[in-house]
């Protein structure tokens, strides 16, 4: 009998130990996946924050630019830069034949003459002189310089020719290739050229969408929550509403996208591809999340506070506005931020309302066409060019840091402003 008891006790301890082990391994697995994920994103993406420049001597030949002596600012603005741009690239190899000259031109970014123009606009005295100018390298050479390009592939399977590589290696040897922080990744809109593509358009698009979403979803959701929690009678009808709010929170986001497409675009004729429509669509999605969070935090306010206010002769409205709502605000706000963070990462509904369009301008208002960060990731991930691979990861890094900051903010609000009850 006694021995039996001891065996049983041992068994119970063993079971507990095993359970701990399961739990620990579950946490270990989760951390492992997270680490792999972050490492992968980071190792692919960090190089996108660097950009490769070719330093090429440019002869600002007034004749080639069809400029007279003492040109005005407007003349410089209107001058033809293509010829001197071409010449400066061709000068890298004076003996190049026509085909090779073409290849030389393709070693820099498509809009290289603009960079040369900027240089002259900055300093008009350069006219007639030669200066070494920083030109954005083509996305393929950018990848070569970052070591992401498989140089040992047979030439006909590469987008970079042996000839280009030869010239490039010469430039590198002469110290005429430089890597600098990629400012244009943050200031440029999207582009078909990977070396010029940036997140400014999608970043602003996301910000505008989130603001529109916040301005619609927050007041509506908070009012709905306050009414349901503090004023509405508890009957079948309000139960029905409650169930449906919970259902709404579980509706796949693409359905909301279809709603935006069918109602906002088709019936109300709102401008396509804009953060305005995106924000309204996202607000439909965020609404139930905020209502649920707001109701939960209203419920968490002890009834004794309401009783105290009512017994003092406060009206229901005063009780709610003076006591219950201020006390529930930290929870409501952090729920709102979590809801917005969800909306920020949402892709499917935005694709349906056309925010997937190629936008190469930076939106100045919610009425201008824009992309959004997650959609930008989707667009770039679809692109074939090697240069976009690192851009995808870099964009994910930006989006994730945005989300982490928002969630951190939610946590801080919750911990700092939440009242402790006696």
């Amino acid at each position, binding site marked *: 009998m006694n021995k039996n008891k001891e065996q049983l006790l041992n068994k119970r301890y063993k079971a507990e130990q095993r359970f701990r082990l399961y739990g620990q391994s579950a946490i270990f697995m989760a951390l492992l996946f997270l680490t792999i994920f972050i490492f992968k994103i980071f190792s692919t993406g960090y190089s996108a924050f660097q950009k490769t420049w070719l330093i090429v001597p440019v002869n600002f030949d007034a004749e080639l630019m069809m400029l007279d002596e003492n040109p005005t600012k407007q003349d410089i603005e209107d001058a033809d830069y293509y010829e001197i741009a071409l010449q400066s690239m061709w000068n890298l190899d004076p003996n190049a034949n026509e085909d090779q000259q073409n290849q030389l031109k393709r070693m820099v970014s498509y809009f290289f003459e603009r960079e040369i123009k900027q240089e002259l606009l900055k300093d008009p005295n350069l006219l007639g002189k030669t200066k070494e100018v920083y030109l954005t390298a083509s996305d393929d050479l950018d990848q070569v310089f970052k070591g992401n390009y498989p140089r040992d592939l047979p030439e006909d399977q590469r987008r970079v020719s042996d000839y280009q590589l030869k010239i490039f290696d010469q430039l590198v040897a002469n110290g005429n290739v430089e890597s600098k922080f990629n400012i244009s990744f943050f200031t440029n809109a999207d582009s078909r050229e990977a070396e010029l593509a940036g997140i400014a358009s999608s970043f602003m698009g996301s910000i505008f969408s989130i603001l529109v979403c916040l301005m619609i979803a927050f007041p509506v959701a908070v009012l709905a929550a306050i009414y349901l929690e503090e004023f509405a009678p508890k009957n079948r009808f309000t139960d029905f509403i409650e169930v449906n709010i919970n259902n709404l929170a579980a509706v796949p986001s693409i359905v909301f996208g279809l709603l935006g497409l069918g109602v906002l675009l088709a019936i109300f004729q709102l401008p396509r591809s804009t953060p305005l429509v995106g924000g309204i669509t996202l607000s439909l999605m965020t609404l139930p999340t905020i209502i649920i969070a707001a109701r939960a935090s209203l419920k968490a306010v002890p009834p*004794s*506070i309401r*009783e*105290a*206010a009512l*017994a003092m002769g406060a009206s229901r409205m005063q009780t709610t506005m003076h006591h219950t709502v201020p*006390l529930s605000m930290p929870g409501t706000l952090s729920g709102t931020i979590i809801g917005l963070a969800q909306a920020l990462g949402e892709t499917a509904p935005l694709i349906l309302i056309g925010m997937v369009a190629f936008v190469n301008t930076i939106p100045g208002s919610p009425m201008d066409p824009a992309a959004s960060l997650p959609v930008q990731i989707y667009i770039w991930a679809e692109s074939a060019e090697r240069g976009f691979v690192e851009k995808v990861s870099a964009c994910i890094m930006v989006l994730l840091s945005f989300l982490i900051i928002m969630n951190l903010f939610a946590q801080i609000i919750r911990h700092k402003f939440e009242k402790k*009850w*006696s």
Partner: protein
Amino acid sequence: MRKNGVKMIKIKAKDVDVFYGKKQALFNISLDIEENQVTALIGPSGCGKSTFLRCLNRMNDVIDICSVKGEILINDFNINDKGCDVVRLREKIGMVFQKPNPFPKTLYENVSYGPTIHGIAQSKQEMDEIVETSLKKAALWEEVKDRLHEPGTGLSGGQQQRLCIARAISVRPEVILMDEPCSALDPIATAQIEELIDELKKEHTIIIVTHSMAQAARVSQNTGFFHLGQLIEHGSTDKIFKNPDNKKTQDYITGRFG
């Protein structure tokens, strides 16, 4: 209190029935409450004494399924009438709850809340005076006068309950309802509150629900004994405790049940 030998009746309850949904919680309660006296309501748990207390300032309105029938006359005005304004009523009838429930705000804001919403004070100075006198009457002033702008939730349990009393008397109510005000407090804090109740009855009519028969005997002049939703007996505390008419009252007082 007697005027010319006649008892002054402040509250007159006539045939009060209370229902929670279909379940009846109070049966036919008729009870007179004397002005400027302490009336204790005693009885075992679930007997309906708190429910009755909450009828007097219509706090049962908050509960959707609760319905009250019968007449409750305060100053000869039926508070269950449609014409009765609850906000006005609760200004006249303050309440102190079982668990201290100060607002999570400063002491000053706690006490000034009632006068603010009812527009009692005309100036900041007047408000300061109201806060000071209320806290003095609640015997809390000396302990907190240097930290009026600290949160009320930082006080001890007994201090919190006195703060709640100060909050209740800040609007100069005619009646104060107390729902087991000492059940969450230690004996010393309880003694302080009981002393306070004795002091308050000079200006207010007090009705106190209590579990402790000793407390009822100590603080009250009149006592009503509730059992299973019925008012079994009521009268002067002396009589109820020493020479009750009803056998059940006798049994409860002597601790045979409850």
